[in-house]
């Protein structure tokens, strides 16, 4: 249990959002000496020995966290699994489409964070995963992204925020 919670803490602090489960299970030493930065004093705290439990933590503001996450990068997705190993066909479809356009993006795995999983649904008033955000704006899920990809609308949306899709027609670049 503490292993899963520590994995959650790592995801929460924004580092290694692609944390693969295997490395979590094998690197117990890393987990037991998690380094965090105190936001107020900028001191580095080294938490050793005792895994932290939810009851001793300050209440988490998931909505604010999500607001920060979607602002961090031009393209942000919430998915099941990680881009290297999606755990859902719909999430995989989103990953593959973004790969075709050669877009760099942040990906957040809702399967390792139950609060995030529910929180992202509340945040966008959208009931399913995956969810795609461009410049902080919710774009849609797998169906919508696929449709936009097929109609060329995705290339346009990316161009609007300054991302050049790998699939952009050379003639369109002059527009």
């Amino acid at each position, binding site marked *: 249990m503490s292993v899963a919670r520590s994995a959650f803490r790592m995801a929460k602090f924004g580092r290694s959002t692609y944390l693969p489960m295997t490395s979590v299970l094998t690197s117990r030493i890393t987990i037991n000496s998690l380094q965090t930065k105190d936001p107020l004093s900028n001191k580095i705290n080294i938490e050793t020995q005792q895994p932290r439990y939810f009851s001793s933590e300050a209440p988490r503001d998931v909505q604010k966290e999500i607001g920060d996450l979607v602002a961090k990068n031009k393209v942000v997705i919430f998915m099941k699994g990680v881009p290297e190993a*999606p755990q859902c066909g719909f999430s995989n479809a989103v990953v593959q489409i973004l790969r075709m356009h050669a877009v760099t993006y942040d990906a957040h795995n809702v399967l390792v964070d139950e609060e995030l999983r529910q929180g992202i649904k509340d945040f966008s008033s*959208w009931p399913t995963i995956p969810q795609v955000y461009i410049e902080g704006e919710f774009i*849609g899920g797998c169906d919508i992204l696929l449709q936009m990809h097929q109609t060329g609308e995705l290339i346009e949306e990316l161009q609007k925020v300054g991302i050049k899709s790998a699939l952009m027609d050379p003639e369109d670049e002059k527009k």
Partner: protein
Amino acid sequence: VNLLTRNMSGMAGPVASIIERKLTDMLKPSHLQIINESYMHSVPKNSETHFKVVVVSESFTDKKPLARHRLVNDVLKEELSSGVHALSINAFTPEQWDKGRQVDKSPNCMGGF
């Protein structure tokens, strides 16, 4: 034309029937297809957790895809917050449908839930 997937004994599941009723009542579709895709995923047999819906309705006129999906999500709010876990929506206006818009096959399950 209303099409509802039925199992071997010709019965549509309860959730599928509710979905059909709600979408018919609220969106007055000219064409409606409700496909239970739970069998494609790692859930027990006879589950009603993953659906694909094809809805052709005038209510979608002048609405962008996201707005159309939100409309459908809203109609099925209750189902989506209880058992239904994934919903693939294909929403067209009658004009788009007549022009021959294609419905894509849903991607394969990759194990997670």
